């Protein structure tokens, strides 16, 4: 894995968050996946971090010298899959 990551490279493509923004969030004090998510929205898009979470973990462990385990995982909230408003509006059986 290359150390000199391009700053403009997207990490979270749903929310279009770049490596630069992730690094900025770490500089501002983010220490785990949730910290990055709150500051940048990485992992808050359609896929809910299914694609980018591991990359966020890798950048965190690289920049902070911590293990992937220490970077944690994001909190899960329903709906875990996108639901359209029309379906929601019909209510729940």
């Amino acid at each position, binding site marked *: 894995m*290359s150390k000199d990551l391009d700053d403009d*490279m997207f990490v979270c493509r749903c929310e279009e968050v770049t490596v630069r923004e992730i690094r900025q969030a770490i500089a501002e004090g983010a220490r785990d996946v949730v910290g990055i998510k709150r500051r940048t929205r990485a992992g808050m898009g359609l896929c809910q971090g299914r694609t980018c979470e591991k*990359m966020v973990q890798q950048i965190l462990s690289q920049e902070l010298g911590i293990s992937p385990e220490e970077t944690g*995982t994001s909190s899960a909230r329903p*709906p875990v*899959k996108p639901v359209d408003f029309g379906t929601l509006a*019909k209510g*729940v059986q």
Partner: protein
Amino acid sequence: MVNKEIVVVGAGPAGLAAAIEAAKAGGEVLVADLNILPGGQLFKQIHKFFGSSAHRSGTRGIEIGRQLLAEAEKYGVEIWLNSAVIGLYDDRVVSIEKGLNSGEKELINIKAEKIILATGASENVVRFKGWTLPGVMGAGAAQTMINVNRVKPGNKVVMLGSGNVGLIVSYQLMQAGCDVVALVEAAPNIGGYGVHASKIRRAGVPVYTRHTIIEAKGTDRVKEVIIAELDDSWQPIAGTEKVLEADVVTLAAGLKPISDLARLHDLEMVYNGVFGGWVPKHDENMESTQSGIYVAGDTTGVEEANTALEEGRLAGIAAAESLGYIAEKDAKERKDDTWKRLDGLRMGPFGEKRMYAKNEILACFPARS
């Protein structure tokens, strides 16, 4: 709110096997899966599996999927397809966005006595400049395109990763009419089984070990892929770059367990590098730290179809036992047999580390109150 005895999330090998065991014993079982076809990844596996006859060696994955499905139907398992489980609430309430024949969807909450989570795994991505360009995709995604949807992802493919997924999908891409222009692997050696690697070598695919992808280039899709050699600390060596003409990059860089539903119901999790990340803790019945919620298959740690199937069986037997459908002695015998087969699958140079990893997970299970 509808009541069901057992709700299984995921109709892959683990979910179907669990459903079959529970329904065979007399349980009322509903399986929900977000895909339009049941079978999970099995219906993409057009190659023959190997291993022991107990695990249907020599049978193609797609055929194993068909057999499981027929068996599930025989025992009266209800299967909802195109139906995503979107939430899991306190006291085992499963929220399902059910796909209707009309094409519409409706939300249904089900109060389940037992829940079996068999949600599988998702593919890891690899970051390099241009990884978000159209044409870059998971190897599993490419396999779905060619083997399920029968659509070629493109013409010239660079495969990154030489584990079994990378090797098998490379070969199947060639069968589908694609040209695999390079197999790129960061490690010094090919990762997967020799039998799969030989097929790739015989077909003349250039193999670049100790290499990685530096960049995918193109304006609206991949046109060129730049690879470079790696030094001993896995850093690209300047001046070794090669430019390959390709319109597809497939990433076979492992998988990670899907655990969002487990986390929603506050199942205790543990990190395990061998199994691909965070997994729910479970005991020998595959029951999680939340009573009545079982886990099976790749969601408990990324392995393969046969281990998923056996873990599904364990969960199905245990759930049926706790509902009173199987006597303790009978259940114990069947679970012991299943564990023996699982141990057999977790042997040898490829399996042993998974045996240790599984034992670590079993060992960290807290005492049940």
